[in-house]
């Protein structure tokens, strides 16, 4: 199929349609409106379900209902809207049914702004709503990668009966890039042994997340946890660039990782032995691979568009064996490649030092970057 120029949000929406999305429920919020708008036209013309809900609460519970029938279903939103969906996400996780969530992050906290951010990493990667559960979170760094991860998000959610989340920021949602879309597939509803589709010629099914007896709830929690371990064992995905002989390992996901790659390429041209590690699954997190890279590197440089949320996972993986540096921009500010190049050059120049908290050292440096 020929490459075409597509806007990120529309491309994601169309990719979902082509891999068999049966129902979409959403609510407008910038910077992801084009997903809703694209599907408002596409879904009805294909005879599939589309509802613009009264709020994100409604949208996620419509998803919950549709997911109970075994349909391939998704919603999308951005940071404040995702916060509103947390109740439903927790119920869906507790009911052990599949769905896909697209989170096009923007600056926060609060109403924040509509600029690209990675400030909701912890919110979704560490569970989100109440209770013990883990969504699978995929972090694309380009429109093509977002499109390619769309079928994977559905497949993983359906394989492990959990939430598959595509975590991107407003820049990937809004930018246009030449991409190749997947071929149009026929909708094929899976035959789940639990689907609530009417008890005709079979015993009744019921789906709930209530386990009043603590021992039953504990069993459910253990089942979820074992499934999560299986996901950790089998579904880790990442991309590596110039890491063969890298002394400095830059770690960044999504847009931060993509900007860092430009800086890494320039630094390489300047003779600095630097490479990039970009997690694609940020949950489950590639702890083992980061630990392995850290054992060969002099320094790790973590780059994020937040205050160092993934940094905590890197620190967990490295466990104090290798010095870690951090560089972040916040509140919807996207770092320029030159800023990250400057950080790479500084790290290459200085003697690596162990510090208690790389984010504290970075915050002090920010006084010279961010002027009153």
């Amino acid at each position, binding site marked *: 199929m020929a490459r075409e120029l597509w806007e990120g949000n529309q491309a994601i929406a169309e990719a979902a349609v082509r891999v068999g999305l*049966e*129902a979409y*429920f959403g609510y407008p919020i910038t910077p992801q409106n084009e997903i809703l708008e694209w599907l408002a036209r596409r879904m009805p013309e294909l005879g599939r*379900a589309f*509802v613009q*809900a*009264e*709020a994100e*609460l*409604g*949208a*996620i*519970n*419509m*998803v*919950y*209902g*549709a*997911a*109970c*029938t075994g*349909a391939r*279903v998704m919603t999308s939103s951005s940071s404040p809207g995702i916060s509103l969906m947390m*109740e*439903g996400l927790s*119920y869906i996780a507790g009911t052990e049914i599949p769905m896909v969530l697209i989170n096009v992050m923007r600056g926060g906290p609060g109403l924040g702004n509509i600029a690209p951010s990675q400030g909701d990493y912890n919110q979704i990667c560490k569970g989100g709503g109440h209770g013990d559960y883990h969504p699978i979170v995929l972090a694309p760094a380009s429109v093509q990668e977002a499109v390619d991860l769309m079928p994977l998000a559905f497949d993983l959610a359906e394989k492990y009966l959990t939430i598959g989340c595509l975590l991107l920021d407003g820049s990937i949602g809004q930018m246009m890039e030449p991409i190749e879309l997947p071929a149009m597939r026929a909708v094929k509803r899976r035959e789940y042994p639990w689907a*609530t*589709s*009417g*008890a*005709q*010629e079979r015993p*009744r*099914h*019921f*789906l*709930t*997340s*209530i386990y009043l007896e603590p021992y039953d709830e504990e069993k459910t929690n253990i089942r979820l946890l074992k499934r999560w371990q299986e996901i950790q064992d089998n579904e880790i995905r990442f991309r590596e660039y110039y890491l063969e002989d890298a002394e400095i390992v830059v770690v960044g996901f999504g847009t931060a990782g993509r900007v860092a790659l430009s800086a890494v390429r320039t630094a390489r041209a300047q003779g600095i032995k630097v490479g990039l590690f970009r997690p694609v699954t940020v949950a489950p997190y590639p702890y083992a691979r980061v630990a392995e890279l850290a054992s060969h590197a002099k320094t790790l440089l973590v780059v994020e568009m937040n205050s160092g949320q993934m940094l905590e996972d890197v620190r967990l993986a490295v466990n104090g064996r290798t010095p870690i540096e951090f560089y972040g921009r916040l509140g919807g500010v996207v770092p320029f490649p030159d800023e990250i190049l400057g950080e790479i050059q500084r790290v290459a120049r200085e003697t690596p030092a162990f510090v208690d908290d790389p984010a504290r050292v970075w915050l002090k440096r920010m006084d010279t970057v961010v002027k009153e």
Partner: protein
Amino acid sequence: MVAITAPENLVYERPQSFTDSPTHYCPGCTHGVAHRLIAEVLDEMGVTGRTIGVAPVGCAVFMYNYFETDFVQAPHGRAPAMATGIKRVLPDRIVYTYQGDGDLASIGTGEIVHAAARGENITVIFINNTNYGMTGGQMAPTTLPGQKTTSSPNGRDVELQGYPIRMAEMLATLDGSGYVVRRSLHDPTNIRKAKKAIRTAFETQARGLGFSLVELLSTCPSNWNITPTESLKWLEEHMLPFYPLGDYKVAPSVTAAKI
């Protein structure tokens, strides 16, 4: 000797749509009556095998144990949204929610109003017993002025705690509503009328005539702190004047269907 178990002598039996499970409801509570009416209607319409119920948060959270139909269980207030999701992907099924007054008239006002406004082809059975039953009898949006509850210990003071909401009247104003009525479960005559209304509501859905809701005035002896018999009387004396029974919306298409 007359064989009372002979089929020709049978005048009353457990509806086929019920499981064998006994219910967990308090003695004298009208949830059991409401459940039975639904089960009878499903039996009579022959739709048990293609019905999906949406259980609420509240006393009826375990109602899926009592019905032979498929069931899901919604977060508090979100049942109409879940029902929407189910109905939109399975439009030929019968989908209904069963919600209490805290669920429907407080935390779930957004969901119920917009389900009705969309003319969502679902049926809602709304149990109004003027309090939060499961959590121990707190004030609900439907608690009567002056009524004592655990969170309005001196009686509901409308100056401080606001006024009760008449949901049936409110939802009847929406164009998407096909059939919105209020009935009561305090005596056999009214129970028969309630069953007829439930049947009409489900038939409204089956014919695709829009949103349908039956509000059922119900009792809660445990939290009202009176006997079941006194509860029925209290309902009649205090709730009926405030929540008049009646048909608040019967769309012309529903009338024309002659259900």
